[in-house]
């Protein structure tokens, strides 16, 4: 399918099927290469590596029973880091729930992420939500909820606000293939297009919505073409190609900043792990499904580029992972000795101030018995 819609400065390659920089043989297409600096390449790679490594560490913690839940992004690192890197610090992100790597990249402290997964009193959201439902206003990271798609409409509203205020802020919203079936995909795209807001709609088509494959999610041939119905150009990109993802997102962000309206990006990638630590994907798919995607691992594609340029090597790689492990270990050690949120905090922030009924209920809880078994 082609990317249709109003004219913009999209390079010619986007009008063919899937935008790519890496060829099948691993070489780079010089026509589509965004020609990032060495510094930028290292930055992207190290954050993808961090995302991968932290994923493994969090899963391990969960299997040991030290945290209750983890939702990872194995295999989707290029889609996440490559796209987030295309934004400016003042731009805003409305995440779904898989993008912790991008949150960290934009300045969300790792300690706060670990605290959030432990749900302790140092957690930004005060232990009120499940792990990975954090937020960080200071780095332009909206709040995460579990119902999928709700962030799309909200992101359209946020971008609309930037337009009304004449502020040079682009909003990017992440969502998965499953979310394209939601009511908010429809409302969000519709409002975003009608109001022509500075929004990048980034759909990570990772093949699955828990156990439901994309062929059962839509009868459309692609997700990108859904933009057509709303008057929004849709672009497909190789989601495991960090350079392609960066390039397409940067173009969409520029279009938004220039007042040309929203763009729908479909990043084709694959959820290599389960939906979360509560899901065993072996129930509904087999290793034959996964194998082709293992051949297109986003880290393994990018690493040789850095090595070939002489800006990275095995030793630096080992040192990077060792450093991530060490820092993570310290964060976990601190999180594990940080106490849970105090009882009183359960009643704060329901409203700005406590109304009479919450004052009463708080007193009731504090005066009452504690549960008999520890949880």
């Amino acid at each position: 399918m082609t990317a249709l819609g109003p004219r913009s400065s999209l390079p010619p390659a986007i009008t063919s099927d899937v935008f790519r920089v890496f060829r099948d043989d691993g070489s780079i297409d010089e026509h589509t290469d965004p020609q990032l600096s060495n510094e930028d390449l290292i930055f992207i790679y190290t954050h993808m590596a961090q995302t991968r490594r932290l994923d493994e560490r969090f899963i391990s913690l969960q299997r040991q029973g030290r945290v209750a839940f983890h939702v990872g992004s194995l295999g989707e690192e290029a889609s996440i880091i490559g796209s987030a890197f295309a934004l400016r610090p003042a731009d805003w992100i409305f995440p779904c729930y898989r993008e912790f790597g991008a949150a960290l990249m934009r300045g969300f402290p790792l300690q706060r992420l670990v605290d959030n997964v432990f749900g302790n009193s140092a957690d930004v959201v005060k232990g009120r939500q499940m792990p990975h439902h954090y937020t960080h206003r200071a780095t332009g990271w909206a709040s995460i909820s579990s119902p999928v798609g709700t962030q799309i409409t909200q992101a359209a509203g946020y971008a609309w606000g930037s337009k009304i205020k004449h502020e040079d802020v682009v909003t990017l919203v992440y969502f998965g293939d499953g979310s394209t079936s939601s009511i908010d995909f429809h409302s969000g795209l519709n409002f975003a297009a009608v109001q022509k807001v500075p929004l990048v709609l980034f759909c990570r088509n990772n093949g699955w919505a828990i156990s439901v494959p994309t062929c059962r999610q839509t009868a459309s041939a692609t997700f990108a073409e859904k933009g057509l119905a709303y008057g929004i150009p849709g672009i497909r990109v190789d989601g495991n190609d960090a350079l392609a993802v960066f390039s397409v997102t940067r173009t969409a962000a520029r279009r938004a900043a220039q007042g040309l309206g929203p763009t729908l990006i479909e990043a084709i990638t694959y959820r290599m792990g389960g939906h979360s630590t509560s899901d065993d994907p072996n129930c509904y798919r087999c290793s034959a499904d996964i194998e082709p995607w293992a051949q297109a691992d986003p880290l393994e594609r990018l690493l040789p580029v850095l090595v070939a340029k002489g800006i990275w090597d095995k030793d630096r790689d080992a040192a990077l992972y060792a450093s991530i492990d060490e820092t993570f270990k310290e964060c976990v050690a601190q999180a594990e000795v940080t106490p849970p949120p105090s009882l009183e905090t359960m009643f704060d922030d329901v409203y700005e101030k406590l109304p009479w009924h919450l004052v009463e209920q708080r007193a009731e809880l504090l005066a009452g018995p504690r549960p008999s078994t520890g949880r």
Partner: protein
Amino acid sequence: MPQLTIVQAINDALKVSMRDDQRIIVLGEDVGKVGGVFRVTAGLQAEFGEDRVIDTPLSENGIVGTAIGLALNGLLPIAEIQFSDFIFPAYDQIINELAKYRYRSGGDHSTKVVIRTPVGGGIRGGHYHSQHPEAAFIQVPGLKVLCPSNPYDAKGMLLAAIEDPDPILFLEPKRVYRAAKGEVPEGSYTVPLESARIVREGSDVTVVAYGAMVYEALDAAKRASDEGVECEVIDLRTLWPVDIAMILQSVKKTGRIVVVHEAPRTGGFAGELITLVAEKAFFHLEAPPARVTGFDTPFPYALEMEYLPLSHRILPVVLQTARA
């Protein structure tokens, strides 16, 4: 002082606040060019422009969802849902997102939105233009639910709602949109939220009502007085958080309570109010608490005057409660 209808009072509140606060955006279906199907937003687009008064696509989910995004970005959206019967596509955004955003973000964000919507029957609107769905929203922690009955309160409470930092559902009793008239000061003033008002003093029975049913309660109180029973009628004004202190003070005086609401009986707000009274003032009660409500049926078209808890149905319950 000018005599205004509720429609005019709300319109005035919107104009006064929009002149004062550039953050305010009005959005909804038909609110701009036409000024709303009830003309509540008439003249706003002409004065404040299409950037601040927006005719949206036909999507309640989209109206509330984008309002949340606008609020996160520092604007102050006043969203209209054309009839409260149509609010349900927005229910997820209201209860799972708007009401919970401050709490779930650890106070890092707030989502200050006012959602205005007409409620109530008696206008030959049938199932889909007559509902009074407050119970579905009172049960959601994080929302404030308001329902003024008269023009003075409507303007003052809307101005207070705009100043209040929390997300608010502002229910407008459409049956008395134009029937209720009253003196409304010009310029800016507020009516405190979470504060009920005694609209008729009495010492025999406490009658609690809100919205259009306040007038029915007052009519029943007049007829009860002819039979020697003096009602104290309370207009709740804010449904949640309710002014429990005023209700209890009255019940301690009268020992008897009747709650009136249009919404269906089961799971309705009267159940909550009566339970609160039972918990806090049981030994002051001299008769079983009573409620006069809509029936547990969808709101009927032809028989709406039989369905509504009007004066003729309130009176016998008041008398029975007084004489028990």
